[in-house]
């Protein structure tokens, strides 16, 4: 894409309400499990109740005898899968468990599947299988297995990075901290559990299933079933939340498709909430040790960040937490390293800000600890270590308005009134008050996407790409970008998305979907306008006649010569003269390698938190959470603000709520439901404020978009934890911070 500034029209930047809003408030929006094709069977699978061992017995006869049950699939009796479940046909593929043997590798692994005429019969049939196991001692804690060195924690992240001389940095430090933070396993728990409705027609497969990566999912399913990718139609118009868990095909989905193939009837499978804790990914546990040093003026001499992170016994994906320490603070030396430990848990995967969330939590707390040790205000400490170029590499930032974020966030919060000493602020009723802050930081990657734009005879347009809306607002923001690319008002643009037969919309992940799919849509619009202009230039009756080499722009449904709005022609008139019912343009977007090489590209922000801690019960409440973020161009401020707030609440959840706990005897997760696995409810959330700082960024991509989906978590966790310390003087180094941590004697 050319390194020029893209023109924006009247849609981008507007706080349009959601285009899918009407469907969503009336119940008309169709999520995967809302489909019920004729003749459909229901599938329910049995999750393993132990974490390690083998399935010794299943009472297949009893299950089969239950009225309504039509098929019981077990490791000993199931149809063959064409592809090897250990294969990795795409970049986002993991080994999956599809009854290939009777080994249990983690609690929650599918060990049998029941097909029945009704959901009730399938559920009861699955219960009647009453599995018995030969169990082995499960390994579910970070100390339960030997650590190993890691070259690639996951999806291309480096295992170890060193810049400068860390030992010299330690030696030069006047103030230093060495601290260890622990983060627990966390589960995405999108409100819509994973679901699929699978229907075969010969060797053609139609899937209704939520997907954050439609084309890649089709390729993976096609590989497993031995059919061409174009034989798979995947419909995913709405995802009921994704957060990273719906990008990677999972075993249960494959089993349901296999069952449908054998049965010759459509099959629906929807995970129960309890089943969301196992085969569909999670954020793995970490133990992070940070050794930080600074000189007498508070300038960092070293950030040394080591992470021990959990993965499954059979697959590799780690929270690459240490990498959060690269790229942010101007330390004299930087070291990030990872070790893994294999546990009897489901394979971890990308969960909203994978690596960065856990890493930022520990880093921002450690920074607070060092600031205190050096006697410097935490914000001032960060400003003293502000990086003007990327630390270690010296690459320029494509843009970085972090200083503005600090200023505006601090101002809105009233940070200057903060006393340095902890445990000094109290409400009149004795409630302890604390203020803390953290820096937010998230990379701005791009994937690759394609799009098509069709101008119609009536002057309206249709734009198409197989994008994914999991709540971030793709139906709306992408349409706004497309409208500007075509020079049309938003209401003149029909947007088709969410089905794999459309041009590949890329991946909704890494906070890169708006930039990538939006870039493709904008380019497709530009291509259509260029074609239309060239067509007009050949039409003697057009004001554009003979303007072929001038370059074209579009506004309000008219093409005009670039830089000369007076010389133009209406879309509809040009098409009518040519006798054309439509004109099609196409576009694609990805980031040129040179830009990736030459610039550091990140979103930044600053988060400030106020917590109140009950003096007797030690209940912790977040009273205020103020975030200021710089993320390039914001396409839709209403939606971006909602997403940033959602991320900040995920930060609150990380800091104070979420944790999956294993029973050490069985390895099962004991709190695998929404009552015991705590996520914030409405009453946990108050005093949220989001500010955005505009950045013009001509390097990150042609649209100048950085993305806002994940950055809200980073910074927020640390800000809240630091506020808890400031309120109480107690530094809790394991997440979530619990009442009992504060009640325990020091």
């Amino acid at each position, binding site marked *: 894409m050319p390194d020029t500034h893209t023109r924006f029209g009247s849609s981008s930047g507007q706080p349009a309400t959601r285009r899918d809003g009407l469907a969503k*408030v*009336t119940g008309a929006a169709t999520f995967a499990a809302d489909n019920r094709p004729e003749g459909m069977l229901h599938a329910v699978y049995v999750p393993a109740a132990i974490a390690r061992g083998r399935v010794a017995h299943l009472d297949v006869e009893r299950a089969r005898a239950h009225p309504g049950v039509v098929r019981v699939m077990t490791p000993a009796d199931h149809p063959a899968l064409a592809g090897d479940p250990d294969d990795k046909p795409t970049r986002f593929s993991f080994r999956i468990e599809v009854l290939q043997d009777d080994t249990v590798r983690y609690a929650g692994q599918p060990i049998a599947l029941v097909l029945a005429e009704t959901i009730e019969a399938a559920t009861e049939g699955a219960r009647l299988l009453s599995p018995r196991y030969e169990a082995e001692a499960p390994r579910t804690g970070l100390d339960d297995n030997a650590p190993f060195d890691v070259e690639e924690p996951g999806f291309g992240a480096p295992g170890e990075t060193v810049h400068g001389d860390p030992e010299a940095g330690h030696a030069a430090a006047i103030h230093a901290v060495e601290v260890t933070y622990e983060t627990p396993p966390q589960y995405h728990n999108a409100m819509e559990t994973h679901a699929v409705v699978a229907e075969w027609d010969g060797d053609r497969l139609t899937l209704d299933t939520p997907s954050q990566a439609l084309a890649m999912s089709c390729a993976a399913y096609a590989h497993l079933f031995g059919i061409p990718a174009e034989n798979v139609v995947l419909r995913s118009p709405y995802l009921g939340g994704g957060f990273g868990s719906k990008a990677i095909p999972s075993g249960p989905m494959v089993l349901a498709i296999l069952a449908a193939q054998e049965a010759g009837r459509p099959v629906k499978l929807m995970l129960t909430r309890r089943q969301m804790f196992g085969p569909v990914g999670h954020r793995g546990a970490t133990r992070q040790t940070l050794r930080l040093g600074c000189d007498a003026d508070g300038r960092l001499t070293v950030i040394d960040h080591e992470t021990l992170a959990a993965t499954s016994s059979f697959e590799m994906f780690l929270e690459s937490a240490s990498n959060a320490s690269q790229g942010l603070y101007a330390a004299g030396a930087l070291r990030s390293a990872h070790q893994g430990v294999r546990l009897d848990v489901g394979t971890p995967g990308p969960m909203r800000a994978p690596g960065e969330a856990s890493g930022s939590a520990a880093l921002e707390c450690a920074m607070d600890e060092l600031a205190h040790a050096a006697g410097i205000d935490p914000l001032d400490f960060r400003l003293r270590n502000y990086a003007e170029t990327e630390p270690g590499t010296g690459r320029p930032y494509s843009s970085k308005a972090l200083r503005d974020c600090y200023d505006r966030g601090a101002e809105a919060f009233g940070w200057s009134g903060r006393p340095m000493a902890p445990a000094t602020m109290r409400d009149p009723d004795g409630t302890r008050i604390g203020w803390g802050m953290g820096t937010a930081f998230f990379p701005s990657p791009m994937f690759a996407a394609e799009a098509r734009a069709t101008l119609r005879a009536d002057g309206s347009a249709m734009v198409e790409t197989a994008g994914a809306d999991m*709540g971030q607002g793709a139906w709306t923001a992408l349409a706004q970008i497309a409208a500007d690319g075509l020079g049309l008002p938003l209401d003149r643009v029909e947007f088709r998305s969410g089905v794999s037969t459309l041009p590949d919309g890329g991946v909704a992940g890494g906070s890169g979907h708006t930039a990538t799919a939006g870039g493709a849509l904008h380019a497709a619009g530009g291509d259509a306008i260029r074609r239309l202009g060239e067509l007009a230039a050949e039409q003697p009756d057009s004001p554009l006649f003979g303007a072929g080499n001038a370059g074209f722009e579009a506004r309000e449904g008219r093409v005009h010569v670039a830089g000369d709005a007076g010389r133009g022609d209406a879309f509809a008139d040009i098409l009518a003269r040519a006798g054309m019912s439509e004109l099609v343009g196409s576009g694609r977007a990805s980031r040129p390698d040179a830009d990736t090489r030459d610039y550091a590209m990140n979103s930044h922000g600053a988060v400030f938190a106020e917590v109140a801690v009950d003096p007797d019960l030690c209940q912790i409440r977040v009273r205020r959470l103020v975030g200021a973020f710089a993320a390039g161009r914001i396409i839709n401020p209403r939606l971006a603000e909602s997403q940033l*707030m*959602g991320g900040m609440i995920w930060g609150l959840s990380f800091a104070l709520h979420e944790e999956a706990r294993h029973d050490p005897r069985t390895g099962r997760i004991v709190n695998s439901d929404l*009552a015991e696995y705590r996520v*914030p409810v*409405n009453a946990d959330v108050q005093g949220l404020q989001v500010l955005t700082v505009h950045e013009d960024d001509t390097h990150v991509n042609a649209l100048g978009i950085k993305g806002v989906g994940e950055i809200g978590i980073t910074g927020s966790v640390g800000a809240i934890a630091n506020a808890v310390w400031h309120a109480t003087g107690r530094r809790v180094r394991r997440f979530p911070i619990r009442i009992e941590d504060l009640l325990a004697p020091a």
Partner: protein
Amino acid sequence: MSLSITLTLNGTERRIALDDARVTLLDLLRERLDLTGTKKGCDRGQCGACTVLVDGRRTNSCLTLAATLDGARVTTIEGLARGDALHPVQQAFIDNDGFQCGYCTPGQIMSAVGLIAEGTAGDDPERIREGMSGNICRCAAYHGITLAVAQAARRMDNDPAGDAA
């Protein structure tokens, strides 16, 4: 076994033959009556995604056996708007961006309609947050949800006829 019940469903009286005594109201709506607006988030009464009004009271339909509802009046998300005119709560959710993915939204909206009818929260944010805390939103659209409920409560206070509950 045959069991049948009579429901007033979104204003229309319907006689429904149940094929199974185990059927919950949620699975009756979703898997048998093509009313899929009501969502399943946990099937255990822990998330509120399945909230409907039963005789005007907000109810977790996943915890309610259909067979126990003979004679009941059930309102689901599909029964809230009057033709093209959205219920004030629905409109308020759009206006205030009270959702992201929209999966919890039918439950949130039904819960809000119930809460407003209960008359205990008014437009007080703190009481709304408390009263809406049986409805989990993993996207965490809580800020917008609270604003939306307050807006709708004010509008309906001025125009009680808008109360479809």
